[in-house]
C-alpha cells in the first residue's frame, strides 16, 4: 500500500521514510506488548500471552509438539490439504471458466447454476461435508475445493470474456486457427485475471481449511488452534495464528513467483 509516490512530500529522502516509520511502528508495538504483559501485568495471561510465553509455546510446538504433532507435522498436514484442494479446484475451475468465457452457449448453460450456488459461503459447506465424509481429510479437501473453485472459475471467465477484440482480429487476419487463437491470444491476455482468481482461490483455501479444522480435525494447524482454545493456552493460540498466517504468506509468495515467471511481458 505504501508504494504510491505522489510527491506530496517534497524534499530529499536519504532512505525510504515509510520503511523507517514502519520499523518504528513494529518496534513500538513489540515494546507495548512487553510493557502491558511482562512488565506491568496489566493484561493477564488468560487474555493475551507475554512475549516470553509466546516464545516458549513456539519452542514447545516446534520440539515436543502439541495437539498430536510437532509444528512440522501439523503444518505439513494443513499444507497438504490446501495443496490438494486448491490444485483440484483450479484443475477443474480454470478450464470451466475458460469454456464459459469462450463459448456463449457454455456461458448460458453454466451461469444460472453458478447464480444458485455462488451465494452460499464456502464455510457453509463444512457441516454437509462432515455429514457426507466424516472428520477426516476427505471432507476438508471437499470444502477447500468448493471454496477455491468459485473464484478460479469466475475470474478466468471474466478474463476470457474481456480478451481484447482487436487482438483476436489481429490474429485472425494473420491466419491463426482456433488452436493458436486460444494458446497465443486468449490464454496470455486472460492470464493476469486468471492469476487474480488463483490468488483469491488460495486465500479462500486457507480461510476454509482453518475453519474446517476448527470445527473438527485430528491433525493440522486448526486443530492446534482449537486445542489451545480448549486449554485456554493463549500463548499457543497466538503461536498457531502466527504460523497459519506465515504458511498462508509463503504459499501466496510462491504463487506470486509463478505468476511473475509466467507473465514476463508486463511493465516492471
Amino acid at each position, binding site marked *: *500500500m*505504501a508504494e*504510491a509516490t*505522489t510527491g*506530496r*512530500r517534497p524534499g530529499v529522502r536519504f532512505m525510504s*521514510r*515509510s520503511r523507517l*516509520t*514502519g*520499523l518504528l*511502528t*513494529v518496534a513500538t*508495538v513489540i515494546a507495548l506488548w512487553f510493557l502491558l504483559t511482562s512488565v506491568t501485568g496489566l493484561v493477564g495471561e*488468560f*487474555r*493475551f500471552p507475554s512475549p516470553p510465553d509466546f516464545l516458549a509455546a513456539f519452542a514447545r510446538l516446534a520440539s515436543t509438539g502439541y495437539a498430536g504433532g510437532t509444528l512440522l507435522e501439523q503444518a505439513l498436514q494443513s499444507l497438504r490439504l490446501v495443496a490438494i484442494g486448491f490444485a483440484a479446484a483450479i484443475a477443474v475451475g480454470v478450464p470451466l471458466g475458460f469454456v464459459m468465457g469462450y*463459448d*456463449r*452457449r457454455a456461458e*448460458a*448453460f*453454466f*451461469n*444460472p*447454476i453458478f447464480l*444458485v*450456488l455462488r*451465494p*452460499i*459461503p*464456502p*464455510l*457453509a*459447506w*463444512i*457441516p*454437509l461435508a*462432515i*455429514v*457426507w465424509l466424516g472428520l477426516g481429510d476427505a471432507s476438508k479437501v471437499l470444502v477447500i475445493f468448493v471454496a477455491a473453485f468459485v473464484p478460479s472459475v469466475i475470474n478466468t471467465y471474466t478474463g476470457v470474456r474481456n480478451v481484447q477484440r482487436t487482438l483476436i482480429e489481429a490474429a485472425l487476419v494473420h491466419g491463426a486457427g482456433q488452436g493458436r487463437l486460444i494458446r497465443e491470444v486468449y490464454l496470455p491476455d486472460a492470464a493476469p485475471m486468471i492469476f487474480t482468481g488463483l490468488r483469491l482461490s488460495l486465500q479462500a483455501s*486457507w*480461510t476454509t481449511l*482453518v*475453519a474446517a479444522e*476448527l*470445527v473438527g480435525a485430528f491433525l493440522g494447524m486448526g486443530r492446534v*488452534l482449537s486445542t*489451545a*482454545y480448549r486449554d*485456554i493456552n*493463549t500463548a499457543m*493460540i497466538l503461536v*498457531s*495464528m502466527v504460523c*497459519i*498466517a*506465515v504458511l*498462508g*504468506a509463503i504459499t501466496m509468495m510462491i504463487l506470486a513467483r509463478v505468476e511473475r515467471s509466467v507473465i514476463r511481458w508486463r511493465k516492471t
Partner: protein
Amino acid sequence: MSERLPLWAWSAAGLILFFGLWQGAVSSGAVSSFVLPSPLEVLERMWKLMNQPFAGALLHEHLLSSFGRFMGGFLLAAVIGVPLGLMMGRFRLLEDIVTPLFEGYRYVAPLAWVPFAALWFGTGIGGPIMVIFTGAFAPCVINAYRGARLVDSYLIEAAQTHGASEFRVAREVLLPGALPSIVAGLRIAAGLGWQSLIGAELIVVSSGIGFVMVQGQSNLSPSTVMTAMAVIGLTGLLIDIGLRQIESRVRAKWEGR
C-alpha cells in the same frame, strides 16, 4: 453460434439439468435421501423448521439472531474502518504507521480470531461480533484508502483555501469523493463478514443459523444442513443486492447519470 437454440434455452437447460439430476438421483433411489435429500425434501424441511422449534428456536428466529450479530459487526467494521482508510489516504504518516500492522493482520484468516474473540468477549454477542469485524474490516479500510487517494488533491487544497477545517475537508471532500470506492468495499466486507459469522457460529456459538447447521450435522440430518445452507445463501444474496442498489445509486449520482 446460436443459430439453432436461443441462448435462454441453454440457460434453462442448465438449470433443469441441475435440479433434475439432483431430484432424479434421489427419486430413482440411486442416492439415499439420508445422504442427499431431494430439493423437495429440503423445501419440506424448511417449512417444518419454520413451524417447529429446532435447536431452541424457529428457523427465522435463528436467522434473526444471526442477522443482528452480522449488523453489529459489519457496522462496527464500517464505522472504524472507513474513517481509518480515509485518514490513511490523507495523512502519509498514518499510512506508514498502519501499513505494516495491517499487512500482517491481513494474512491471518478471519476464523483464526475465533479463540481470542471467545476468550475476550464471550460466545454470546461480543465474540461473534469481533469475528465478523475481523472479516469485514480489511475491505473497508482498503477501499476507503484507495478512494481517498483518488480524490484530486487540488479539491482538498481548494477547500482549505476557503478556510475549511480538517473535519470539514474529511466530511465534505474526502468522504463524498471516495464514496463509490467505499460502497464497493462495503459490498465485499458484507460478504466476508457474513461468511465469518457463519464460521463463528459453527465453532463456538450456540444459537443462530450456523448453529442450526451444526445441530443438523450432529443429528446426521443433511436436510436440516441444506435448509440452513439455502437460508444462508439467500440472506447473503439479499444483503448483496441491497448494497448493490446503494452502489449503483451512488455511481449514478457521482459519475453523471
